[in-house]
């Protein structure tokens, strides 16, 4: 083996700086699979205070609410003196109460470290040009959009080279940028840039007078200045890694953004003083981050106090003995998604019919599937974003011949739709089309005035009529008989449902109903990757009704009576209607329908006030109609509140919570430690649903505390980019990620209270600790302050700390 010459130390640190900075960017999913993601996910190895300080200094971002928010919570008693005392005590009494209170009157003075473009903007403001930062963000964003769009534009750039090469090419040919910025030499300088990303990174890091020690922070600041597109690149990386590969788009994007700074230095070379002055600002980056950590102590103490107030109340409720347990032998068992919206409707369902027992379970029902609608290539994952699909679900009719005929008929209809689409797609056709058919759009316009009451639609039915759709069933592919039994067993065990099956077991997925809503998928089931739970629920019902599977299960000690029937259903979270996909025979059928209807009424009344429909609380029929119209109203920016105000996750038998009104703030997963002999179910719950709920919680928190950076802005300005990639707020600017303002704010107040998720598990403490010890991710979340964990044992509640369990005084 010949000796490889050691690379120069600088290139080693450049490599490391690129890896470190790109490694800090969390992914964002596309709009058609918009699941919630924690924007801090790639930072959980740092204490939350440090991560927040770095984001503030490098990106101007905030990770906790403003002091004004805390002041308001304090003055109206939402944060009490005891909450603050506990928070201070947990922080090691490093702040006196007086310091905390004094801190409420001023926002901390943490300012972003300037990029070179910021420095020039502050330095000289040529009134006749846009600020550099805005101009660069716009240019980079447009180049990225052209590169990544595969759905909207009919005319795309030649996909050669890479993102960086594409950007360089477009800038080198850009005759407008020089006019716009007043720096005519940009185009020439762009032509002289290295041809590939790595070359640029090397050249620019030599050109800019920063010490290699600062590179990674500076690179991170550059990426945060285009955080939307960086998050998109991180998504591509995430997908590539799920498939076992990797993806270099983040590095390319970094090169693009760094190239702009390089260009500024090059074309402003005469002004070396500015570059030097700017680099001096960076020489104190570490001190600035340290100072921001210190300044943030007050914020995090108040944040903890805010959470303590909520936790104290919930802990008291959870510790109090459960009265009147579940029905001994229920007529119906209904498994719902852990989603906080299920809590409301489950409570309602249990209250209207004592013979119904409800169960909380991850809404993808444990099926790691991808689904492809018949006759199409539109495969989509139906499982949490953390996982890669392991099985395929397709549709089939009674016979292969019929399946093929249906597929061909659908393809022909979809092809006709594509052909008709040409009328509005190509310019000349559109000129004449509006003259011929434009008048017909008057009827479409009327639809905006009077939204109808249509049931939930969606793309699934395209190209099929109702009869055709009805003749299709879902088909789980690629599993042999033993595999099917194994899958069924693992799902039932994870549900803690292995005995005492009721005659009817509902598997209730959920989906929202809204139209004209780019963020619709964000209201659907996050565990199903932003789809409804229909495919999963129907697939599982089919699996568990299969006599062969049941026979196999019986061999494994899970006996499902012949009278038991699994029925898939869908909870419409906009209207709180629950529709069954298969009929339940009478008399149970009509009893069940009646219970579902009455439970829907209760749930709707409970939600009415927050939706501005309080006046209809006394009139269930009118309230239902109003919500059905709301789901069809294309002008409605708040079809429902989604998971706003989520705050806790309870992993315990339903008896623990059955008597409580948890106000739709709590995720609920059934778990019986006694049936989980080897602890494997607990391990699964703490490494999958717990992470998913953390992601959801973190996204709502982030979009609330810093809507400008972590939220996608105002829906009335949204402008969908690249079909599914994301939105711009208005004309352009960076890609916007996170939740729209309308998802967390009703115009008067915040509908989400930003609390870090509190997880309560009814299981022996040592078992929980064993899971924590085995999983670094869980450990990071807990030890670095991203998540609260509590253990429920009989009537005792204790809080997890790295030093052990701390009992919560009753």
């Amino acid at each position, binding site marked *: 083996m010949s000796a490889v010459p050691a690379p120069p130390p600088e290139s080693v640190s450049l490599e490391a700086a690129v890896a470190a900075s790109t490694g800090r960017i969390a992914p964002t999913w596309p709009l058609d699979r918009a699941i919630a993601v924690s924007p801090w996910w790639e930072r959980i190895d740092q204490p939350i205070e440090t991560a927040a300080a770095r984001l503030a200094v490098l990106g101007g971002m905030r990770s906790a609410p403003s002091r004004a928010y805390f002041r308001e919570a304090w003055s109206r008693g939402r944060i009490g003196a005891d909450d603050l005392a506990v928070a201070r005590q947990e922080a090691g009494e490093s702040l006196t109460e007086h310091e905390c209170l004094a801190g409420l009157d001023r926002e901390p*003075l943490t300012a972003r470290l300037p990029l070179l473009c910021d420095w020039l903007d502050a330095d000289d403001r040529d009134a006749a040009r846009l600020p550099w930062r805005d101009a660069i963000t716009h240019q980079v964003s447009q180049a990225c959009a052209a590169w990544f769009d595969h759905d909207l534009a009919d005319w795309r750039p030649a996909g050669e080279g890479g993102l960086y090469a594409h950007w360089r090419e477009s800038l080198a040919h850009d005759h407008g940028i020089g006019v716009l910025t007043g720096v005519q030499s940009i185009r020439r300088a762009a032509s002289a840039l290295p041809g590939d990303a790595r070359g640029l990174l090397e050249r620019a890091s030599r050109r800019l007078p920063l010490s290699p020690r600062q590179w990674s922070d500076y690179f991170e600041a550059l990426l945060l200045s285009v955080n939307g597109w960086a998050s998109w690149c991180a998504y591509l990386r995430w997908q590539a890694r799920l498939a076992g590969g990797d993806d270099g788009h983040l590095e390319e994007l970094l090169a693009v953004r760094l190239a702009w700074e390089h260009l500024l230095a090059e074309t402003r070379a005469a002004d070396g003083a500015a570059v030097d002055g700017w680099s001096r600002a960076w020489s104190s980056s570490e001190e600035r981050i340290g100072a921001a950590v210190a300044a943030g102590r007050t914020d995090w103490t108040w944040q903890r106090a805010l959470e303590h107030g909520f936790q104290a109340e919930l802990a008291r409720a959870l510790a109090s003995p459960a009265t009147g347990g579940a029905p001994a032998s229920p007529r119906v068992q209904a498994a719902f998604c852990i989603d906080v919206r299920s809590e409301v409707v489950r409570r309602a369902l249990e209250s209207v019919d004592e013979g119904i027992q409800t169960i909380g379970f991850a809404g993808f029902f444990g099926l790691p599937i991808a689904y492809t609608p018949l006759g199409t290539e539109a495969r989509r994952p139906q499982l949490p974003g953390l996982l890669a699909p392991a099985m395929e679900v397709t549709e089939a009719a009674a016979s292969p011949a019929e399946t093929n005929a249906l597929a061909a008929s659908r393809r022909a209809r979809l092809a006709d739709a594509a052909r008709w689409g040409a009328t509005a797609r190509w310019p000349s056709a559109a000129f004449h089309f509006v003259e*011929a058919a434009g008048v017909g759009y008057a009827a479409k316009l009327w639809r905006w005035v009077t939204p109808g009451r249509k049931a939930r639609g969606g*793309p699934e039915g395209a190209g099929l009529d109702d009869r055709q759709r009805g003749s299709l069933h879902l088909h789980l592919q690629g599993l042999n008989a033993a595999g099917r039994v194994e899958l069924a067993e693992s799902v039932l065990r994870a549900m803690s449902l292995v005995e005492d099956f009721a005659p009817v077991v509902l598997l209730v997925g959920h989906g929202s109903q809204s139209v004209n809503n780019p963020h619709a998928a964000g209201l659907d089931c996050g565990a199903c990757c932003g789809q409804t739970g229909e495919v999963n629920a129907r697939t599982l019902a089919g699996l568990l009704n299969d006599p062969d599977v049941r026979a196999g299960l019986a061999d494994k000690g899970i006996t499902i009576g012949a009278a038991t029937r699994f029925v898939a259903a869908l909870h419409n979270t906009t209207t709180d209607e629950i529709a069954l996909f298969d009929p339940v025979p009478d008399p149970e059928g009509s009893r069940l329908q009646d219970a579902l209807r009455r439970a829907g009424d209760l749930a709707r009344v409970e939600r009415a006030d927050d939706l501005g429909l309080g006046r209809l609380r006394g009139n269930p029929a009118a309230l239902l109609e109003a919500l059905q119209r709301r789901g069809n109203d294309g002008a409605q920016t708040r079809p429902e509140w989604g998971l706003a105000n989520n705050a806790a996750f309870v992993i315990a038998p339903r008896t623990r919570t059955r008597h409580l009104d948890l106000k739709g703030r709590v995720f609920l997963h059934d778990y019986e430690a006694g049936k989980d002999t080897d602890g494997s179910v607990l391990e699964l719950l703490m490494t999958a649903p717990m992470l998913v709920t953390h992601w959801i919680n973190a996204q709502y928190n982030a979009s609330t505390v810093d809507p400008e950076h972590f939220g996608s802005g105002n829906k009335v300005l949204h402008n969908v980019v690249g079909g599914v990639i994301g939105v711009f707020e208005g004309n352009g600017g960076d890609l916007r990620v996170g939740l729209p303002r309308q998802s967390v704010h009703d115009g008067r107040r915040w509908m989400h209270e930003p609390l870090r998720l509190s997880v309560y598990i009814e299981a022996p403490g040592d078992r929980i600790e064993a899971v924590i010890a085995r999983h670094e991710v869980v450990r990071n979340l807990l030890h670095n302050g991203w998540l609260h964990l509590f253990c429920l044992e009989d009537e005792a509640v204790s809080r997890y700390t790295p030093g052990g369990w701390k009992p919560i005084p009753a």
Partner: protein
Amino acid sequence: MPDSPSLLLALAAALAFGLGAWRARRSAPDGAWRCARVVTRFAFVASAGALVLVIMAPASGGQWPGVDYDALGGLLLVLVSGLGVVVTDYSRRYLEGEPRQSRYVAGLLAVLASVAVMSLASHWVTLIAAWAATSLALHGLLVFYPERPFAVLAAHKKFIASRLADVALVAAAGLAWGEVGSGSFQALAAHLDAHGASAGLQVSAALLVVAVILKTAQLPVHGWLIQVMEAPTPVSALLHAGVINLGGFVLIRLAPLLEAAPAARGLLAVVGVATALLAGWVMLTRISIKVRLAWSTCAQMGFMLLECAAGLYELALLHLIGHSLYKANAFLAAGDAVLQARLARMRPAAHALEMHRALLAPVAALPIVVGLQWVIGGAYDAAWPLAWSGLVALAWAPLLWPAGGSAFRGAWTGAMAITGLTGLALTWHALPILPAAAPADFLDGAFGALLVVVFAAGYGVVVALNRPDASRRLPGLYRMAYAGFYLDEAFTRLTMAVWPPRLPRSARPVLPAGQAAEPVMEGSPS
């Protein structure tokens, strides 16, 4: 008082909008929306009634100083008051929770009032005042979020373009008034009829065309239209459906002046064709839905102006109305873009376009287009000149391309679609309510042939995009198109140099070493 019931109803509609705007401005949001709801519904019913009356008894149109009522204005009024109903209702729900709603409602109604008056204008003074008022009322809506720098910049650019247009219009009016001795359009038409167009009137027509080009966002002064996506979606719907197209209305209204001025017509035709072609290409490269729609409007308006230049006023009016309804819906439905993308992904992949099919398609479409005119028109003249049928055939040709699925079925459904669409267009065309076309001399001969060649080039680009390995084709043209042909940058830079707007600061404070900055923590929970 005017003695025509139609004019009375139309004036009542305009007045209702105006009073509504005045009242809404002074009301709390709930009251403002209620007021808008009542006013827009009343105005729609009144303007529809007026149109019905004038169709049943054409003599029931009438005049009053500065205004008159005829089917042309009546159609426009019905169109905008109908849009008013939709946009108001949509906005009421859409803007829930937004600040300054009363101001928004007032702005909306003020725009509608101004357009309503414009639809009745029979005098230069009414026309110029109403058009300027439309632009000023719209300005308030475009900067509905004054904290957004790009909103302010785009609205500012529009403001400049509109004021330049006002200057051109005033000059056009002054020249015409001087020549004719009256500012009334009727007198102008009579004068042209009797004396033809003097040099002064020729210049007046050219200035009118310049004003229309500025107000209709034609290249190269189109930038503002593309960049005003910084206002709530229904504002875009109203702008693209009820305001931007007024240039076409004015040209139809002043058709006698335009027809008497070949140079002005030529300028209009060149700018219109160039915009239709170039903006159409740019549209194909756009990556965000609203900006795509905006470029589409830009191109559509170019095409409408071409129709005016060619004297095809009935088509121009059909275009104005059809595009208005189509584009209003397209903007209001912009949130459906994700669903549309999902549906498109379900469709079977189209086979790459073979060259012989691409060449054959327009040739196959032409006989349908011409034949239908022959069948429907019988012994009468064709509906439009032959060159125009050539454009229609080129336009419909993509319907005959393969789109996945069976080729035979594709050709059949494509031919049926062409037949249906052409039949529809011919049906509208036969409505007696439309204005008559000018003598067709303009499209005969060289200009008509040139037009076919230009649109064939446009077809060629679209064909190239559907050929195998499409993205490697025409990379140079792609870059130009993606950059909007670098036309807007100069206008922006000139704006910033000559009359810079006061832009709100967008970025958060950055702290250069050793300097203090005021902390600003906007947008966080409070």
